[in-house]
């Protein structure tokens, strides 16, 4: 198993350079003017990046204020009794709440779990599984919708948060099943 993981992780360092060379190679074979087309496509990079700025500011400011005010900590304290009923460890609640909001925040929480409980503890494993199994929902929604100027997001947030919740709960139960 470990060997297999190693091979996959090693292979990943070749994927990007291979994509960068093989696509133009094939295109050249198909008589595409690769340099001119590359530049043409690259032009869009600037406009898209600039277009997402207001959306990103709106989302990141709200998240930053929420964390700095201590509201996040109160939310954790308030939810603890409910979660203990379903067997959800309170040590992993901050991660479950932080994961959809902030990538760097949840990475910080993961390193906190590692420091407090060690890399082999159940809490670290549950936290790491949560970290690895979902994405930063609010960031993705702000960037993706922002890039095309969509302001009415309909059911996107509910669907994203339901997926995050399902990921967090399955992280708890799978790790408990496998590691205890």
């Amino acid at each position, binding site marked *: 198993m470990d060997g297999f993981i190693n091979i996959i992780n090693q292979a990943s360092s070749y994927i990007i350079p291979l994509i960068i060379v093989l696509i133009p190679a094939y*295109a050249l074979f198909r008589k595409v003017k690769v340099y001119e087309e590359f530049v043409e*496509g690259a032009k869009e*990079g600037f406009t898209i990046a600039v277009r997402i700025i207001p959306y990103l*500011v709106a989302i990141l400011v709200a998240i930053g*204020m929420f964390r700095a005010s201590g509201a996040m900590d109160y939310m954790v304290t308030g939810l603890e009794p409910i979660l203990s009923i379903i067997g959800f460890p309170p040590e992993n609640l901050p991660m479950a709440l932080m994961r959809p909001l902030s990538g760097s925040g949840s990475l910080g929480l993961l390193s906190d779990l590692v420091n407090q409980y060690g890399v082999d503890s159940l809490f670290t494993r549950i936290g790491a599984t949560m970290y690895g*199994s979902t994405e930063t929902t609010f960031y993705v929604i702000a960037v993706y*919708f922002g890039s095309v100027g969509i302001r009415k997001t309909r*059911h996107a947030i509910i669907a994203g948060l339901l997926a995050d919740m*399902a990921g967090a709960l399955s992280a708890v139960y799978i790790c408990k099943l496998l*590691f205890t």
Partner: protein
Amino acid sequence: MLNYIWFAMIAVSVLVGIATGRIDAVTDAAFNSAKVAVELAIGLIGIMALWLGIMQVAEKAGLINALARGIRPLARWLFPEIPDGHPALGSIVMNMAANILGLGNAATPMGLKAMQELQELNPEKDTASNAMVTFLAINTSSVQILLPATMVGLIGAASGALFIPIIIATSVSTIVAITAAKWLEKRKAFIQTPPSGEEA
């Protein structure tokens, strides 16, 4: 939806900040986050340009269309609104492939390209289409198979044991994401108003 969540987060932050005497920290966080947001976006320009350039070359070579044709059955079910052979399907597949391989840097530009192509098919330009929400739900639930490099950096060799639990948890969250997006898109509260959303 986002209007209420956004306002609630800001209002609660200010109230809690005043109550706990951390109002200065809240103000700092607001200004700092605004700065970070711009830095993030600016930092994205170069990587975006690189991948969008490669994507353009792939498209002109006919690779994107070939890819889109290959996954037609799955895509037809996930995104019934996208016509056959539309370039949006190719970009969506490229984005998913990059996510699965853990190539976050490559996934974002391809995902944003897919959003632009989906926007061309969108009847209401300021409102998300069904295909967009389904695509985003899959993206936020993360479909990766490789372990995130940041996590491996923190946990080291012990992260090998997490391979299986992460694949199971991410599969569960992806299935829930697709089911939720598909079910919610037909509910009264969320259905798209123009006739395009009425069939099926």
